């Protein structure tokens, strides 16, 4: 009972200052999420999926301070990409800094706009709720109850310009919850970009409903600000013949937990989720992925690569669940770390749970240092030590970067990586 009481106290403290919106189309979903949250409480180290990542600073009543990050030495990522920019400063939409959403060629609205009727009523909190079983996602329920803003995007056709969500960080105590709903109708196509330091503490939920034959691309960069904390959640549901691809680059940030929960419901769909993480020093990065195969002949790929140095910690918890009847499933999962010193560590928990008898599933997890033979080979040809190390780090990350379909975006990410490596030179 003491444990339960403590959990209830922690939750009461966490939500004490938060405002539960009582009106508008999202109110019923919020009330329902609060009830679910009351039943499950907040995450604790003893929870199975929080054993490697201490949730303390994610659930404290107040966000730990983090100085805003300023872009002094390089342009923000995606600067050269033709896109529709939507800017949030400490989680508050900034119309002056944003492009006209009408340009996007999509149906787009803001969560903060409220109103009584909205198509997203059938999506907001719905995929999040589905994703709570069998693993509780406490912070996602918290987000559904208390998110202050976010976008709802509905797409019916093929949209060429990416929708770019830019999160700026201004106040060193900002504590932000954003909730996005994205609905791709039959045959639609959309790319969503996310970047920016966001807040001292950020909690996001993105629910993506991908209808028959639709294609969704998600490319995100996060981190940069050494002290910020973030818990992000992507929930997606895939109908027949649809495609979902998500790539995340994380370059520093004190604590990051990225959860991705995918349900491959229809037949013949494809879901790829990939991540490249670079951590130097006080860096804790956690990828927690759950892919459920329901439909037949679906392909899923998880590719996660982490480069860690000076005591940085990487975590990977990836699961493929193949339900009965999901025959001809092709599931692949790889998680690898490159440890640049002995102080850094990588904790991996790959899981497969298969109830169909005609499937192909593979997983692998490795942890290693830079290959001395390769390093010497490069140096013997005249490549200086640091450049040779960078080349090998980029080579290690190449499989994850290859998951970005668009070449211009992939190049942008590569430049980002190279700049990071230059700034964090000297790997031993």
């Amino acid at each position, binding site marked *: 009972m003491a444990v339960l009481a403590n959990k209830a106290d922690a939750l009461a403290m966490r939500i004490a200052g938060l405002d539960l919106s009582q009106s508008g189309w999202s109110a019923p979903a919020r009330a329902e999420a609060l009830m679910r949250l009351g039943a499950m409480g907040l995450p604790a180290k003893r929870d199975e999926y929080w054993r490697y990542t201490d949730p303390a600073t994610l659930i404290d009543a107040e966000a730990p301070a983090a100085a805003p990050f300023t872009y002094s030495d390089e342009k923000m990522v995606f600067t050269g990409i033709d896109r529709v920019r939507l800017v949030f400063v400490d989680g508050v939409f900034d119309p002056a800094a944003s492009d006209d959403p009408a340009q996007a060629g999509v149906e787009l609205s803001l969560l903060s706009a409220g109103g009584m009727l909205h198509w997203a009523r059938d999506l907001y909190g719905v995929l999040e709720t589905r994703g709570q079983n069998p693993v509780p996602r406490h912070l996602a329920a918290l987000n559904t109850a208390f998110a202050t803003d976010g976008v709802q995007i509905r797409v019916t056709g093929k949209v060429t310009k990416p929708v770019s969500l830019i999160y700026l960080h201004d106040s060193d105590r900002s504590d932000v919850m954003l909730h996005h709903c994205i609905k791709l109708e039959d045959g639609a196509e959309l790319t969503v970009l996310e970047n920016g330091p966001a807040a001292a503490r950020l909690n996001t939920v993105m629910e993506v409903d991908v209808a028959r034959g639709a294609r969704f691309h998600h490319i995100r960069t996060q981190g940069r600000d050494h002290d910020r904390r973030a818990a992000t959640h992507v929930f997606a549901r895939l109908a027949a013949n649809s495609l979902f691809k998500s790539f995340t680059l994380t370059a520093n940030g004190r604590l990051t937990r990225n959860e991705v929960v995918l349900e491959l419901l229809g037949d013949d769909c494809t879901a790829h989720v990939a991540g490249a993480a670079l951590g130097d020093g006080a860096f804790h990065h956690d990828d927690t992925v759950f892919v459920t195969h329901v439909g037949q002949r679906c392909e899923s790929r998880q590719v996660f690569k982490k480069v860690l140095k000076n005591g940085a910690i990487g975590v990977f918890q990836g699961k493929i669940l193949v339900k009965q009847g999901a025959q001809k499933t092709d599931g692949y999962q790889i998680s690898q770390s490159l440890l640049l010193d002995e102080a850094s560590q990588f904790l991996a928990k790959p899981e497969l749970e298969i109830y169909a008898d005609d499937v192909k599933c593979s997983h692998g997890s490795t942890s290693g240092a830079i290959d001395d033979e390769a390093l010497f*080979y*490069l140096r*013997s*040809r*005249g490549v*200086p030590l640091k450049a040779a190390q960078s*080349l090998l780090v980029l080579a290690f990350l190449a499989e994850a970067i290859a998951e970005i379909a668009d070449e211009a975006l992939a190049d942008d990410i590569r430049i980002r990586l190279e700049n990071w490596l230059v700034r964090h030179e000297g790997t031993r």
Partner: protein
Amino acid sequence: MLEIKNLHVKLEEEDKAILKGVNLKIEAGSVHAIMGPNGSGKSTLSYVLSGKGGYTVTDGSATLQGAQLLDMEPEDRAAAGLFLAFQYPVEIPGVGNMTFLRTAMNAQRKTRGETELSAGDFLKLVREKAKTLKIDAEMMKRPVNVGFSGGEKKRNEILQMAMLEPRMCILDETDSGLDVDAMKLVADGVNALRDAGRSFLVITHYQRLLDHIKPDVVHIMADGRIVKTGGPDLALEVENNGYADILAEVV
């Protein structure tokens, strides 16, 4: 070109002497061959000269065109004109062969204070050199040495040598794992690079490579020392009688 004096080297991890006083002087434009039985220290010599870790120099010196080689980082030795064709070229997944070659070339040029080669000039040059070594475009696009056959790896080494135009080339058992045709191709590549300003040190077990790359001087190495030096005939003697006779004679 290259002058090695009284070189003593031991393995860093165990207190085991490998080279026990190597003396060698290679003039500009000449080709020297080192032959010797397994474990005589031939490969160690090539690694120590190119700067591989894991060895400790306990005595002696090596100079390249007057510069103290053993104090330099491997990349600086390369920029100074040293090149080692590896016995076992390393596979580097994720790094394209072209990217690797261009990075290496420009890094060396930069170290020497020269301007970088433009993408167009580089491409033209690499196509021309690759063609003579029968290296196709597809191979150049693949990651460095990944999925290459033994012969392709060795040809790739020679291509790198041709592109980087070093002054002092060390070939460490470049003939191992090659069939007759591949050896001919590699030897032709090497011979095309012979000129008055460039020297070669060819390390091999067998005389057959020396049929194609004709040496000026042949050394026999045994137990960490050069025990006999002679002309091209010395290689034939080894081929006909093995090492035993020569070694017995020396002792």
